[in-house]
């Protein structure tokens, strides 16, 4: 059996990749994609921990997180499309009318 720590290392790696993506990517879509990566890292961690505790609660939680991620996609893409229609760009650096 693969030890739990391996799974947690994988999920940590995914989470870090997502975080780096959020901090460095400049298009709204790519930032959003990186957030999805972070959510899936959390899912892997939940499943791995659920297995190590021999408890199903964590695995059911994953379903809820997946549903939340889907809802977030619906809202997020709607906002991004609304902005793209008006400005023909989704570069987050162009959205800087307000500062300070």
């Amino acid at each position, binding site marked *: 059996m693969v030890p739990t720590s391996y799974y*947690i290392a994988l*999920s940590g790696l995914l*989470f870090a990749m*997502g975080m780096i993506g*959020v901090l460095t990517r400049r298009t*709204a879509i790519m*930032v*959003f994609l990186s*957030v999805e990566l*972070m*959510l899936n*890292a*959390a*899912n892997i*961690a*939940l499943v*791995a*921990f*659920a297995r*190590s*505790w021999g*408890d199903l*609660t*964590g695995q059911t*939680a994953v379903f*809820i*997180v997946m549903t*939340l991620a889907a*809802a*977030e996609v619906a*809202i*997020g893409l*709607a*906002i*991004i499309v*609304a*902005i793209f229609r*008006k400005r023909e760009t989704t570069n*987050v650096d162009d*959205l*800087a*009318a*307000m*500062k*300070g």
Partner: protein
Amino acid sequence: MPQLVAPDVALLPLLPILLVLTGALISTLLGFWVGRRVLTVINIVTVVLSGASMMLVWNRNLTSFAGGLQADNAAILLGLTILVGTLMTLLVSLDTAWRERVSFPEFDAMMMYAVTGCLLIVFSGDLIVMLIGLEIMSLAGYVLATFQGSRRAEESGLKYFLLGAVGSAILIYGIAFVYGATGSLNYAAIAAKVGSVSNLTPDNVGILVGGSLLLLAGFGFKIALVPFHQWTPDVYSGTSTTTFLFLSTVVKVAAFAGMLRVFGGALTDAPGWASVLQVLTAATLIIGNTAALLQTNFKRMMAYSAVAHTGFLAMCLLGTPELGGAALGYYLLVYTLMTGAALAVLAALQRTEAGFEISDMRGLYYRHPAYAIALSVCLASLAGLPPFAGFFGKYLAFQAAFQNGYVWISVLAAVTSVAALIYYLRPAMLMFMPDRTPAREYLHGQRSPTTFTVGLGVAGITVLGILPNVWYSWVANPAIWQFLAGR
């Protein structure tokens, strides 16, 4: 053949949430046929009914969904605070929504869905229910922020969405780690496990500390704790003022309620998070107050004032559950009343959605005497001047942190309060200076629902300031907060 066990679904503790959800569903469906004002009135009724139904479950500590939902007294007190904020927003929106070009039924529907999520956080008994509530609240909040469709609103909506999504992802990762360390998602079970270190192996203590810090960061995004506050001024000042009112009162109260449930309840005895929270609180106090001092636009100043108040409110979480919970319960209601009333005046009198410049407020007293006096009462209360309730709220927050050994935070908060005094009282003084230039604000903003809201806020902060026990005697019962912490 395993027996199928019917889930434990008691509807009575769900009733306040269901009533608000009914309002949301009515707005969604009836929105095709009736105008928005009718829906707003219906929603006001459902909010009042929901408040009344909370009285039904008072003192009964009911649970539902096998502990997933808890209608304990802490939930009811914070839930009532949320409903007060909602009521103020709905009343103000009756007057301002058409001017802000958000007067369509979806606005009400989204707001009521957000309130449903807020109540779900407040009534949550485990981390997953809290997460669902938080997401319903945030997703509806992103839509509300974008709703106006202007360039500023879209910018604010996208910023809110992207940073809110990152915050949620960090929060979920934190939930996974706390689950990994304790093997449970239920607050009471986590508190029991965390209560004595011998329950946890050293590995698990490490995972628990990591999880609670991730949770702290995730919540930090929601309540605008420095350094996770960067979206706050842009989102609040870019969106319509009615939405600003909603986001800075109701949504913030709900996020703090979630923090109180998690850090004041489940993770009270967990190591690590308090020392990080005190550093973040100090940073919030310094940066929030300093930045507010530099603003020239009143709406943006109020946005930074919301960040600064996050610092004062977060001090309550540093206290022991008994003192800190009571202080937070009192301060959140007062914060809702004074911020709500001040923003109601701003929403009524601003000419454009950019709010007005502080210099334009000169002579406001001679043009709108009642609103000018009300606004200066709110600003004095926000600054923490007696005899208004903001003073007592700050005093309780300082006391909670001080008595739990965070002396330096209390001293720092007292120093930053002096800076707060300057930026709150400068517009208040300008309003009473004579001015001969033509008015730079909207002259027909004085309408009865807004006046009622402002009156409610001003009366609330005055009465609660002179007779704090009207509300404090309810929240000060230590049993409520000890119950929350599972003791």
